[in-house]
């Protein structure tokens, strides 16, 4: 415990009971926590009930980075300041190797903690995963069980046939063979 150090610390408890101690400025990146801390209704240890320890670790990593960027950015010519491109590259690197279920948990966490930047990173990643995929591929990726009967599925397909059709070009080409 480090009560008398110059930086105020905040303790967070994940859903599986692990306690993390972070600087207050890091915790405040999360708007939900910021509100709690400012209204002074935070207990000694803040329970974050819907987020597991490994996810919370990742979230804290993100928050720390945000603090690092913003700490000295009030003046110009900050070496930590990033251009649009660098920010993009950083975001990609941060999300690299995150699998689908971790991604979902990250989204839940950033939504709950109200961290807009992280939420957007997750959404971007998710979109890039889903885009251009067939329903079956999406089911496989996220372990979703198809709870439609074949008849129901067929019915929905027929309702919006156009979206399920292949491009007429392909059709033309294959039929002209």
């Amino acid at each position, binding site marked *: 415990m480090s009560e008398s150090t110059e930086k105020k610390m905040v303790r967070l408890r994940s859903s599986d009971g692990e306690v993390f101690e972070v600087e207050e400025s890091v915790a405040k990146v999360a708007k939900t926590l910021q509100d709690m801390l400012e209204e002074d209704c935070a207990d000694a240890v803040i329970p974050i009930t819907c987020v597991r320890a490994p996810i919370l670790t990742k979230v804290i990593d993100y928050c720390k980075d945000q603090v690092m960027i913003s700490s000295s950015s009030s003046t*110009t010519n900050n070496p930590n300041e990033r251009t649009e491109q660098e920010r993009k590259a950083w975001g990609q690197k941060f999300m690299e190797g995150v699998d689908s279920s971790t991604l979902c*948990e990250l*989204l839940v966490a950033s939504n709950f903690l109200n961290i807009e930047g992280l939420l957007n990173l997750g959404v971007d990643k998710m979109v890039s995963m889903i885009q251009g995929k067939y329903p079956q591929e999406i089911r496989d990726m996220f372990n*979703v069980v198809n709870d439609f009967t074949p008849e129901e599925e067929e019915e929905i397909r027929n309702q919006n046939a156009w979206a399920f059709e292949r491009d007429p070009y392909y059709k033309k080409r294959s039929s002209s063979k």
Partner: protein
Amino acid sequence: MEEKLKCVVPNSREDGIRELPETVLLHILSYLPIKDLIRTSIVAKQWRNLWKSVPSLKFNISLCTRESNKQYSEKKLDFVDKVFKCRDSFALPEFHLSYSDTGKVGTSFPRRFKVWIEVVARLKPRLVDLYLRSPLRSLQLPTMEALEMLKLRVHNIGYETFNLKSLSGLHSLKILKLEGVDFCLGELSDLPILEELHLRYCHFVASFILEGPNIFVFDKLSSLSNLVLDNRFSRSFGVDKLSKIIAGCSVNTFFWSCTYIVWSALVEELHASVATPFANLKSLFLPFYCCYCDDYVESVIYLLQSCPKLEKLVIKFEARRHHGKNECFPTKDPPKFALPSLWEIEVAHDGKDEIQCCDGYHDNFRIWGTADCLHYIRSDHLSESPIRLRSAITKGCPRRPPLSRRRCRDAGLSLVFEGYVPTAGSFSEISALDPEMCVMGSSPTSEKFGIEEFKLFKDNCKANWSRKTKTNNY
């Protein structure tokens, strides 16, 4: 104790996507192309109706001649009808439509579009973004009280004009971006809280602003802070009116492109009319499209004189049509002025066509001229303020970096090489730079000097740098 937090996230539970709050899922889905979006309806029962309530709809309809199969075109349009039928009761914050019909096959489009926009208007949109390349020649917008941003880009085929009939009923509008559209300028006074106005290729309107009597419209736009006038191919400029607009609305960001005009003459005219026409200006964007003038440094300096509060300056050169002599430095003593708040300058140079038809001296001079202009501003007119130079030089142009080593170091500039094809030699001059200030931008595609070489160069810099500075952050 924070060190122990760094661990790899292991594989986790299975229920994943089902845990996601619906708002998040909808947010994700709203980024999907419409076809992908509808396909998600058969993933599982939870997903079945999600697509009907996404907060943003994007249609991208392109009927080109190759697909001139009429039936197919109509089917595409039918589809949009169907989507709207499903949506009826959900609010729709964002609506994007890009419609392109080069084969003139979508004959039913004008009729359908009218219906669509009526439906959208009922769904209380906050953003409407339309791109039209269609037989439609005029548009009457329905009342949309909640609309904050309207983007309307029209691709005119031939010299036909596109008329926007009404802007009344858009009382919440803050941002208006029009491209290739003509409308009655008086309509603008119905937009009490407008903050941004972009007029691109609105030739009729632009000439009306600058020459006609309708200048008084701008007096009513007291909240206007961001003005873009981009009429690359229009010759007419009544500069005195322009300065009155800028001063009258307290515009602080101004994008002004001009073509086919002698720049310095224009700026002098400006000065003759008002002493400091851009007194409140904070950002100035000056893209030069194939300008003929040689004395642009002088012009820029003249112009900067009238922007005492300037914080950001972007100059873009496109030297393609340049012909003339190479004297670009002010010959006489340039006037004195101060830019105490300036902190960011971006200079972009596009010399891609120039390179074939001119010698090395010629294609360098613009960069050197520009850089000199910057150096000149820095040394004489900026007290202590550091400039952050982003020099975006496009491919193939200079063989030397835009600023010499000494200048960069003195000014504390950071250099960004964007699309710049450096040779190994080009860095020898700036090797004393702080390596962290050098950033390789997009497309470093030189055979001689690729990313590897850039790394090497940076390492070199690092070695030099750490020898010089005792406090090394990295």
